């Protein structure tokens, strides 16, 4: 088997690749279920289909998808520019800490303003945490992949310290948790299951989609990613793009963190996200590094979380299977994406082509 470069990128393959990858992932998941001694078809039904058959679980799906969409949309812009922010999980945590400081220090403050301040601080926290690797890359050429990841561990330890120490709820029976948020410290709900953050996540992704495809800023980002040299000739500053992308993706991760603690989690605790920041890396690639594509990818990854919980309750399959399925999915996408720029040629057809020429 040999690969041959296509004359130009295949648009059809770019669209088909995520679907092929999903199909392959489902087949692989079936094999894993079968190896574990479960009926693969029944397990696949519980994992991928059943969550879509009840209203409450569809609402759950939208709620779980919203942080993935927010973070994934920011990361897709980042990765377009070849800025490798992989510390979104840490930026989410930093946003949650800063947003959570409001109810922790002013537990009795109740006004719509509270929520606004929390959300603003959440964005700010994420941006601050993302600005560090951006600054270190611009000023010292320090690799942002490694620095942004190291900062995940640092901020998670900081949160752990806060909720076990100074920010612990005095009436909380020594559990490592802050006070429970209430009233205007929580997001309003649009339906019984869907909070305001879900709507905002969808709007943000659509707006970013517009920015990327229709504005000069979006063009600047794409050009910088494709060729820093070409970007320099066009007068685009690479350093400014790096900072912009990190602040944007960090801010959105921080926003997701603020939304999580003011809705699903409802307080600060050592763990506030089941790895949304890392899963969002998969979301960005699955969504073709396009904020609008990220909406669909975010919904699919949210389904993988809910399906994992479903097979655990219904079939006693450990929900760790979720992360395996997510990892396999990313592998298949990357493998299938090869076919966008290359095609597979067999030695026989090459010989025939050579003879014809």
């Amino acid at each position: 088997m040999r690969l041959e470069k296509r004359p130009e990128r295949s648009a059809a393959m770019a669209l088909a690749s995520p679907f092929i990858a999903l199909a392959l992932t489902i087949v692989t998941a079936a094999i894993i279920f079968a190896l574990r001694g479960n009926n693969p078809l029944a397990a696949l039904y519980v994992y991928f289909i059943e969550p879509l058959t009840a209203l409450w679980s569809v609402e759950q799906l939208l709620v779980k998808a919203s942080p993935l969409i927010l973070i994934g949309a920011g990361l897709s812009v980042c990765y377009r520019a070849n800025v490798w922010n992989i510390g979104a999980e840490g930026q989410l945590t930093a946003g949650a800490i800063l947003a959570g400081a409001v109810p922790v220090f002013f537990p009795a403050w109740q006004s719509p303003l509270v929520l606004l301040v929390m959300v603003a601080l959440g964005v700010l926290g994420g941006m601050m945490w993302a600005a560090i690797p951006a600054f270190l890359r611009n000023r010292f050429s320090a690799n942002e992949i490694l620095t942004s990841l190291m900062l995940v561990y640092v901020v998670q330890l900081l949160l752990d310290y806060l909720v076990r120490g100074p920010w612990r709820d005095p009436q909380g029976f020594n559990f490592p948790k802050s006070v429970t948020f209430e009233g205007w410290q929580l997001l309003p709900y649009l339906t019984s299951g869907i909070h305001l953050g879900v709507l905002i996540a969808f709007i943000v992704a659509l707006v970013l989609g517009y920015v990327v495809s229709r504005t000069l800023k979006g063009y600047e980002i794409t050009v910088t990613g494709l060729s820093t040299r070409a970007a320099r000739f066009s007068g685009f500053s690479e350093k400014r793009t790096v900072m912009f992308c990190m602040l944007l993706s960090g801010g959105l991760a921080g926003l997701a963190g603020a939304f999580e603690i003011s809705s699903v989690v409802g307080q600060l605790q050592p763990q506030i996200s089941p790895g949304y920041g890392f899963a969002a890396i998969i979301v960005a690639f699955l969504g073709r590094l396009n904020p609008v594509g990220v909406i669909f990818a975010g919904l699919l990854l949210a389904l993988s979380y809910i399906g994992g919980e479903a097979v655990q309750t219904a079939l006693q399959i450990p929900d760790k299977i979720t992360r395996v399925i997510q990892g396999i999915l990313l592998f298949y996408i990357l493998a299938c994406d090869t076919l966008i720029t290359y095609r597979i040629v067999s030695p026989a057809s090459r010989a025939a082509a050579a003879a014809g020429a």
Partner: protein
Amino acid sequence: MELLLTLLTIIMTAATPLLLAALGEMVTERSGVLNLGVEGMMVMGAVAGFGAAFMTGNPWLGVLASIVAGMAMSLLFGFLTLTLLANQVATGLALTLLGLGLSALMGESFVGQPGVKLPSLAGVDPLVPFSLAMVAATGWFLFRTKMGLIIRAVGNSHASAHALGYNVIAVRYLCVLFGGAMSGLAGGYLSLFYTPQWVENMTAGRGWIALALVVFASWLPLRILAGAYLFGTISILSFVLQAQGLGIPSQFLSSLPYLGTILALVVISGNKALTRRNTPASLGQPFVPDR
């Protein structure tokens, strides 16, 4: 003196997994391939090593299993990046995400089980002298043998190496596999000797620190040794300070190795001349033979 010797032994123990993984990654990167999946290969090595030793009762089979697991993961990476020409950064991330998930699933039944500890030989764990020997061996191999020269040529200019008739892809596959074996072994060291048990995510970012060490050491084996022992010292220092009870919250001390990594990267990357001299020029770039 006694205390100093004990301290040195502890530091060596803490440094050895970093040293093993970083040496492997250094060889991989010298051939021009950036494998960011060290953490994933390491954690798979840890779970496979623990599992094999737990089920057979033989820790040496555990060591073997951890090497095989690391190599299997690296083969997956090699297939995607070298045969299918996928993006190396993204594939490395995928390898880490998959490794963390798969090891958690495989290790589900090992949680809380007593591990089988690798026996010490004359007071030292056998993998410590092995890691030191590997420093000398990789240095000699890369800089004193023809094969090492070919690896460096492939990493510095894959087009020239190809034109000279060397099989770029085959050389890279071998280097990726070596990196996988060393990362797997580093993981096995954690679950078979350092803390003989299985805990989810037990590598705790060591794979990423090893990656940073390679940059920090500017792709030179002796500097990797120095860097690994420096980081071993930092992590032991945080333990010692915790035991002293100075009132510093343990979480701050635990974050020292991560902050130290960032600091080290800043210091070394700021030195442009040093990094440019040693960075393999083809690092991270896919190779497509044009004929």
